[in-house]
């Protein structure tokens, strides 16, 4: 589904990613873990077009997406969440989710400016879809609320709903469990398992319980290099990973 081959990223003389090659198989939940500053977020940003690789290739469904701009990815079927939630504060929850389907819009600004009937219809369909997904996330009661009024874990759920409304083929999740409670993490874990295999998931996360539970495959990044990969069981017993990242106490 997604493949990075020999990706190098250098920012002001510092090598942040050093020949990173990794694969995200179709239909899997793949985890990317590693210490802070290892380059996880940078790897994510390379895939989503915020950062350009100095060398190496990123391919999605066999096609290179090295030079694709961030806003074009949604159209290709890649959707992502942001670490800082990134909801639009002056838009309602429903409007936020509706914008998630932007890539499905066909109407241009000319037909928009005349509010032609088919534009209207298209918008009603998107609205319907957004309401449905909010209902599925049991968020329909806060549909008209402003994101700022909601507790942080709920905001994260809205952001996830927004990422899913476009029905992506690949979902990039940036620390979905950061700052949310144990209850929500259980919910999240169940949801992720439901998503596959229709939707492939790439997950950056520090919450090891979640990663170990849901991931089919884990890549470990340290100091810009991939140091290990494998199933959760393999990662758990990998000595390099223990010293670089997990620490003895976490495993025991």
């Amino acid at each position, binding site marked *: 589904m997604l493949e990075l081959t020999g990706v190098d990223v250098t920012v*002001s003389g*510092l090598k942040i990613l050093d020949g990173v090659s990794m694969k995200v198989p179709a239909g899997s939940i793949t985890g990317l873990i*590693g*210490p*802070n*500053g*290892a380059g996880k977020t940078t790897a994510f940003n390379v895939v989503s077009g915020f950062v350009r690789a100095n060398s190496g290739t990123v391919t999605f469904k066999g096609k290179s997406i090295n030079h694709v701009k961030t806003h074009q990815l949604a159209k290709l079927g890649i959707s992502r969440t942001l*670490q800082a939630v990134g909801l639009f504060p002056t838009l309602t929850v429903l409007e936020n989710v509706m914008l998630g389907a932007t890539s499905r819009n066909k109407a241009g600004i000319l037909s928009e400016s005349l509010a032609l009937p088919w534009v209207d219809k298209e918008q009603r369909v998107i609205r319907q879809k957004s309401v449905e997904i909010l209902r599925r996330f049991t968020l329909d009661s806060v549909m008209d609320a402003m994101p700022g009024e909601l*507790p*942080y*874990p709920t905001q994260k759920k809205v952001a996830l709903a927004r990422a899913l409304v476009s029905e992506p083929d690949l979902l990039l999740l940036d*620390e979905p469990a*950061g*700052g*949310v*409670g*144990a*209850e929500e993490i259980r919910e999240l874990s169940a949801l992720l398992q439901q998503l596959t295999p229709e939707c492939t998931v790439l997950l950056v996360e*520090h919450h*090891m319980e979640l990663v170990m539970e849901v991931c089919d495959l884990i890549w470990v990044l340290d100091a810009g290099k991939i140091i290990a990969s494998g199933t959760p069981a393999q990662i758990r017993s990998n000595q390099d990973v223990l010293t*670089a*990242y*997990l*620490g003895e*106490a*976490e495993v025991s």
Partner: protein
Amino acid sequence: MLHIHNLTVSYGQVVALSEVSLEAPRGCVTAVIGANGAGKSTLMRAVAGLIIPKSGQVTFDGSDLVGVATDERVRRGLVLVPEGRSTIAEFTIEENLRLGGLWRSRFHQRESIAGVFDLFPALAKRHKMLASTLSGGERQQLAIGRALMAEPTCLLLDEPSLGLAPLIVQQILELAQQLAIEKNLAILLVEQNAVTALRVARTGIVLNLGEVVLHGPAQQIAANKDLRHAYLGY
């Protein structure tokens, strides 16, 4: 050292903290744990003077802190390390550190910087580089280092583990314990990561929906299964 008595904070209609009382003695870590939205950060910000409580008292070193501005609290030795690795990205590491103790004499500043660099050798190596070049864990170290520049007697650590790798979390929390013992600091630690926090703390306080539901020795709380299920979710 630090006494909080019946502290109540509300945002408009919403009550974020309700009659919270606790104390943080010198020489040990006092951990405040609880799920998200329990009011932990609100507590820290109120103690630091960044938000004004509706009622209740905070006394530090025997004197009441009502009406004392944040910067004055810092000068008296009550220093907050806020959530989210707050450093000034456009400043060099050294400038970030100097900022923490600007009102002190140059001599004292130099001495404290040397002390921080002893504690965090990774920072010393790059003291002329911008803080934006640091990793998350190093930035957290820098934030703690900046707080130490003020020669605090009481340190407020707000979620130092947020977004950090398990290994770094362990190091940072162990450092907090070490600082409390070696420098005889009072450390009030707010954490979501209850397991690790209770491991380094002497006393634990469980906060739920703005109220203290439990107050006791950290080891007891960690051992209490029912409680863990009810409030900490593991």
